[in-house]
């Protein structure tokens, strides 16, 4: 359809949240200086961890591969700047549980020396073979920069025999405070659009929609100017209403196309691929400039810092450096959050490094995040069910999770919960609903693991039991054969090669024994019967 206004659909529920976007968009993007030390986690993506391929003491160039990843779902890790590897050890990484994981620590030399590590730009990339583009994006270690960090190349691999319906570019930055996509588009509209064209070339979709929240007017304007209108080259800029969580993959697909991703399924199941606008930008740099993913845009904001703004940051930079670039903490700072206030997680310290998935550092004050009162009983008001974008019944899920009735929770589709936090936000009883759902999911997963373990143990036991029995039988058989052979030898001394001959000999022996000797000989021959 080529009408200039795209027909929009609605997703269920959603929230109008205070946006807090103006604070961090007043000033232009600031590239921050190369820190003296970079801590680069080897696993910054969904999938297997990369394996370090450098040694402590080794000099590395900017863009040099420091972590290999051979698995299909995985991403390589590159040195964000030139310098010397000082250590490969466990350091705290950005993770909800605050765990430590293997990191490559680089002492930078400040020269930003690429050496030979910049890849060759791909010529005429808008007509290049999709396979070449896909491989380059994989080599560059690009993951989804919207926050989920799923390896981008995997999503760019079409299923055999499937024509892709629609490539959706997610520029709907729906969480409050976050503005890195907004500022990225404003400052690099050309590169972003080239990146989108590259993704389009790699996927060959029937259509390409850019979903962008309608309040991001400067970014929309920049895209329009660069594209030369609302729609050109099969790329369609579609402003969508600002309603949290419109930027959720499933919700965005629903708003733009009216279609739903099947439960437990992927967008590819309905012929769609969704990529973040930051991912498109990274793809451009990898394909057109040969640069792997070593830096990204990060919003530093909240009333906990003096000067909220957007920064161009090397992966591995400690968060404290970002805070310093935002002119430091205010006295009110109370909680440090990576990501947005609805789905982000709190960090235990600012020594933790920026990773590929870090879109926002929110320094919140107590007033911003403190619960307004004690947790009260659920009064089943149903506000949560009204707000739920997955159209679940959060109030019922809460009861089941609380009662540890996990079967019932699954019956009520617990696993369709996207943990967006809408239910907890509207709950008048201040119940931390999302925590209950996470708890229930984790319990179910661990039960599942236990069951699998038990299954394996049982299989092993049964196998061992069967093996022992088999051995026992084999042994008995061998013994019996030996005995028989021995008896045959004793009796007639002949070494008949053929079974029939032995049999005949045995018969003869038996007959002889029966005729001549005692009953003992009879019972001996009877013993042989069962083993035959």
């Amino acid at each position, binding site marked *: 359809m080529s009408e200039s206004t795209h027909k929009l659909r609605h997703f269920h529920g959603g929230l109008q949240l205070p946006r807090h976007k103006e604070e961090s968009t007043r000033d232009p993007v600031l590239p921050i200086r190369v820190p003296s030390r970079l801590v680069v986690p080897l696993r910054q993506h969904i999938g297997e961890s990369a394996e370090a391929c450098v040694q402590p003491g080794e000099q590395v160039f900017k863009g040099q591969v420091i972590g290999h990843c051979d698995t299909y779902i995985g991403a390589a890790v590159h040195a964000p700047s030139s310098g010397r590897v000082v250590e490969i050890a466990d350091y705290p990484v950005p993770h909800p549980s605050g765990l430590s994981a293997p990191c490559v620590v680089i002492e930078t030399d400040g020269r930003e020396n690429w050496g030979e590590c910049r890849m060759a730009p791909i010529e005429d990339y808008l007509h290049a073979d999709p396979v070449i583009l896909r491989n380059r994006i994989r080599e560059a270690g690009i993951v989804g920069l919207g926050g989920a960090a799923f390896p981008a190349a995997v999503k760019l691999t079409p299923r055999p025999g499937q024509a892709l319906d629609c490539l959706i570019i997610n520029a709907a930055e729906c969480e409050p405070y976050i503005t890195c996509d907004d500022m990225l588009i404003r400052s690099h509209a050309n590169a972003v659009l080239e990146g989108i064209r590259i993704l389009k070339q790699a996927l060959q979709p029937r259509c390409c*929609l850019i979903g962008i929240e309608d309040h991001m007017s400067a970014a929309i304007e920049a895209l329009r100017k660069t594209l030369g209108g609302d729609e050109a080259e099969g790329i369609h800029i579609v402003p969508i209403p600002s309603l949290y969580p419109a930027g959720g993959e499933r919700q965005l697909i629903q708003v*733009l196309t009216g279609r739903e991703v099947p439960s437990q399924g992927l967008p590819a199941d309905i012929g769609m691929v969704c990529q973040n606008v930051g991912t498109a930008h990274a793809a451009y740099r990898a394909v057109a400039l040969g640069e792997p993913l070593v830096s990204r845009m990060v919003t530093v904001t909240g009333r906990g810092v003096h000067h909220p703004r957007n920064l161009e940051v090397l992966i591995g930079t400690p968060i404290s450096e970002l805070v310093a670039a935002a002119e430091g903490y205010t006295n009110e700072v109370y909680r440090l959050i990576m990501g947005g206030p609805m789905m982000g997680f709190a960090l235990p*310290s600012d020594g933790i490094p920026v990773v590929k998935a870090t879109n926002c550092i929110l320094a919140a004050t107590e007033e*911003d995040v403190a619960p307004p009162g004690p947790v009260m009983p659920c009064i089943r008001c149903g506000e949560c*069910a009204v707000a739920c974008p997955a159209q679940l019944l959060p109030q019922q899920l809460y009861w089941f999770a609380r009662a540890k009735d996990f079967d019932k929770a699954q019956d009520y589709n617990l696993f369709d919960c996207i943990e967006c936090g809408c239910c907890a936000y509207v709950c008048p009883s201040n119940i931390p609903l999302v925590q209950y759902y996470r708890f229930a999911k984790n319990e179910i997963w661990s039960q599942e693991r236990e069951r699998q373990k038990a299954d394996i143990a049982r299989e092993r036991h049964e196998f061992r039991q069967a093996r022992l029995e088999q051995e026992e039988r084999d042994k008995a058989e061998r013994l019996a054969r030996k005995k028989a052979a021995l008896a045959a030898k004793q009796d007639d001394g002949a070494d008949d090669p053929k079974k029939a001959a032995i049999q005949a000999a045995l018969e003869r022996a038996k007959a002889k024994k029966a005729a001549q000797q005692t009953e003992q000989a009879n019972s001996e021959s009877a013993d042989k019967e069962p083993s035959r």
Partner: protein
Amino acid sequence: MHFRTQSSPHMTPAHNVGQVMLRVIYALVPGTLAMTWYFGWGVLINVVLAVLLAVGMEALMLLMRKRPVIPTLGDYSAVVTGWLFALALPPLTPWWVTLVGIGFAIVVAKHLYGGLGYNPFNPAMVGYVVVLLSFPRELTLWLPPMGLAEHNFTPLQALGAIFLGQLPPGLTWDAITTATPLDLMKTELSMNRTISEIRENPLFGDFSGRGWEWIGNWFLLGGIALLFMRVITWHIPVAVLGSLAVTAGAFWIFDPDAFASPAFHVFSGAAILGAFFIATDPVSASTTPRGRIVYGIGIGVLIYAIRTWGGYPDAVAFAVLLMNMAAPTIDHYTRPRVYGHNPPPRRGDGSGP
């Protein structure tokens, strides 16, 4: 620098239970004042007494259950329970009836089940049904509405009647009390009088009972305010009043002389109060959108059935309690279709080029 961590979301929620209940209380004010206007100071005294008793008993139960008293009282749910209970009482109900009713509402129907959020039945209605069944005489001591009453009670006289059972000299209970329009309609219909004859009675106003119709309007106003404040959704009130009107309308069209009009049913007794304020009690109602419609229709039809063929002139309390019982089952069968489950057939696709 180190920080304390906490699980998401990290945004201060927008509402709390106390605010919700306070809004319900504000919305009850116009109707309560109208009721006081038509039926005298006794209405207000009942409300104050019931609220004080409810809050007192709530505090006592919380103390005995070793629960935080002040934060829990701050949810104002006891105030709402006491207030709704009082609105169901005749204006000069003796104080001990209120005591017994509130006792059952707060102690038995609410706290013995585990307190706010755990009660399967609407506490105010449990209290009301208990006193209605236990003290039928006291619960029929309705006064005629203003304009028909021969004696207007001063606040002191009302206090005397409620607390000491004393009427001003020269008055007897029989002389001052009268039937409610619903009551009258029921008894007269049972004596085979026609509706048009019955409506000759001065108790009837333009389309319902005199006074009652205006009280209904004011509660309706409060209810609409609740809708706009998004304290309640439209499902239950529309389903209750809609099904009551449709059921009444069907019988009325069939025989307008033997069955009262839909307007009479909707604006009489506690129908509007019940539809907006009682049936919408979230704890004991159905909680799914479709379930709320089923639940409301059940209440509306039951109100009509009990009023018309049952033993009581008004039936909101019984209808609500009966549907409370059905709420969990209704919830089970009216779950919404979850995102991504059996998606509806694909319509014309707007995404294609």
